């Protein structure tokens, strides 16, 4: 590596000035890591303010407006309050696991930022298995919730944790099937490779069904409404975090806020071209603006959903996943794979030189889009039939089944 400028080739520059090569490498890595880790933690302060202001507008309130201009410093005041609050550990809690859980929950989200590409040259690290990396890291968050629920020594916390874990693992299935589609089209699992492959055409046009399924299942992965069984106050007192207080409680929510924005970034990178935009090759810094703008749209949309939709019941949640999202996502993968072969056999696929050209990508995009539309029409028809049957059966059966309890009756043992 040549020493061209101090920002992008720091290691080479340090070596020129006489530092040990290994040490120079390490310094470069450490600086990169600190920058990438700081980003989500700074962003979260702003995100909480955006979220509260947005929720307030939806509910016809003003929202935070006292601390700082437009209430911008409200989050900092809240953080200070959380730090000086008494931190209560319930009697009988498993202390080590109890303290580790909120930390792991934040770490698992922050780790995803390592592979998010912000511009053609700015990315934490472009792993060749980036797409699989963020799923793997995200699945550690599930574990944190399990640890929190179990270590609190509270039935409701444990029950909440069980429900949440069942929800998170279930919605991981359609999410990963949707993720298969960009990998299939781009022929790459590196995040940078997937974004590069969208220079000609965004993947959302090639497979809108995959994009929609990815969006829905990531919304469920963060546990936001309408999938917010994570904190079902009315049913489970609070859920897995009931016994937490002070900063530990705050960390779970900081993790959740970052997670929502992280998912918006992933959505933008995987389906909406990430940093791709005009003049991004000349001025790479523009990539930051493009990707964050795209992510902001999904972030706000996700907030709108959260603030306007009612919570679903757990049986509806599971049925929606296993009987709707999973089958549709599987069919979608098959259709996309089949059409890609057809496109190639007919010679409609863009050649390697022209893959960045919008016009050259059009034939392939049209074929795939028609395939997606066929799926959508078929699914809508099935849903309409299903809805009709449901209405008919509702008219005949008026007595609703009692809500069932999750726990087995304790008297079985006695």
């Amino acid at each position, binding site marked *: 590596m040549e020493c061209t400028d101090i920002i992008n080739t720091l290691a080479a520059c340090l070596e020129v000035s006489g530092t040990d090569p290994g040490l120079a490498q390490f310094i470069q890595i450490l600086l990169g890591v600190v920058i990438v880790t700081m980003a989500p933690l700074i962003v979260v302060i702003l995100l909480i303010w955006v979220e509260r202001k947005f929720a307030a507008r939806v509910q016809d309130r003003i929202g935070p407006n006292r601390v700082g201009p437009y209430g911008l410093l409200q989050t900092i005041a809240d953080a200070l309050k959380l730090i000086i609050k008494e931190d209560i550990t319930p009697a009988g809690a498993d202390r080590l696991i109890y303290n580790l859980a909120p930390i792991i929950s934040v770490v698992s989200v922050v780790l995803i930022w390592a592979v998010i590409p912000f511009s053609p040259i700015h990315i934490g690290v472009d792993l060749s298995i980036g797409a699989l990396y963020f799923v793997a890291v995200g*699945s550690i968050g599930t574990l944190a919730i399990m640890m929190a629920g179990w270590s609190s020594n509270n039935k409701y916390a444990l029950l909440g944790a069980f429900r949440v874990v069942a929800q998170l693992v279930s919605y991981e299935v359609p999410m990963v099937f949707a993720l298969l589609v960009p990998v299939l089209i781009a022929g790459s699992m590196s995040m940078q490779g997937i974004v590069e492959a969208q220079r000609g055409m965004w993947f959302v046009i090639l497979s809108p069904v995959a994009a929609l399924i990815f969006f829905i299942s990531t919304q469920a992965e963060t546990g936001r409404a309408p999938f917010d069984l994570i904190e079902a106050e009315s049913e489970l007192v609070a859920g897995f975090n009931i016994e937490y207080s002070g900063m530990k409680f705050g960390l779970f929510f900081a993790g959740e806020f970052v997670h929502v924005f992280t998912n918006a970034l992933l959505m933008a990178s995987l389906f909406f071209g990430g940093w791709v935009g005009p003049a991004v090759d000349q001025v790479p810094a523009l990539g930051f603006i493009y990707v964050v703008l795209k992510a902001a749209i999904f972030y706000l949309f996700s907030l709108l959903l959260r603030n306007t939709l009612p919570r679903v019941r757990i049986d509806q949640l599971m049925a929606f996943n296993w009987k709707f999202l999973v089958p549709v996502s599987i069919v979608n993968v098959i259709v996309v794979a089949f059409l890609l072969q057809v496109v190639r056999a007919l010679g409609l696929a863009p050649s390697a030189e022209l893959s960045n050209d919008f016009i050259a990508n059009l034939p392939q995009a049209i074929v795939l889009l028609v395939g997606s539309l066929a799926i959508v029409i078929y699914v809508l028809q099935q849903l309409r039939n299903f809805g009709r049957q449901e209405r008919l059966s509702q008219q005949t059966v008026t007595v609703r089944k009692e809500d069932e309890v999750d726990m087995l009756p304790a008297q079985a043992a006695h």
Partner: protein
Amino acid sequence: MLELNAQSIGFLIFSAFTIGGGLGVVSSRNLIHGALYLILSLFGAAGLFVLLSAEFLAAVQVLVYIGAIAILIIFAVMLTRSLTRLGEVFNKQWWLSALVAIGMFVLILVGVILPVFSGMDTSGVSPNVATTIDLGVALVDGNQYVLPFEVASILLTAAMIGAIVIARDNE
């Protein structure tokens, strides 16, 4: 002797995770603690895969073993009654498991460790590292592994059907 560089430091750390986690699993009286130690051990194994340039396998290790199997183990522990606080570390069959463990160790020692470290000829081993793309091609190539690939699918289907039959036998 080990040369002290990033790779050997990583190897030492991940080996400590793997072995320490394994010891934790067998020595902890709380089954949930045991499951968490197991996760630590599996995480160490994922790190070892990375050091061997098998990134895909490392991701699989985290995704399947930590993300799915560990969760399943915790669910299974929760299904069993009052096994979270075991009274004793040993039970009546300890000699049997000790026998099996020693047998396995001898098997690995004779079969793998001794041949590799007693100057086995490694010049025939190709220096090329297979990529994940190579794996994908090999899995569906008619001359290579397409049959095992499909058999794996049948195996998974059978596993799922079996599990459902066993779990729901009361109907």
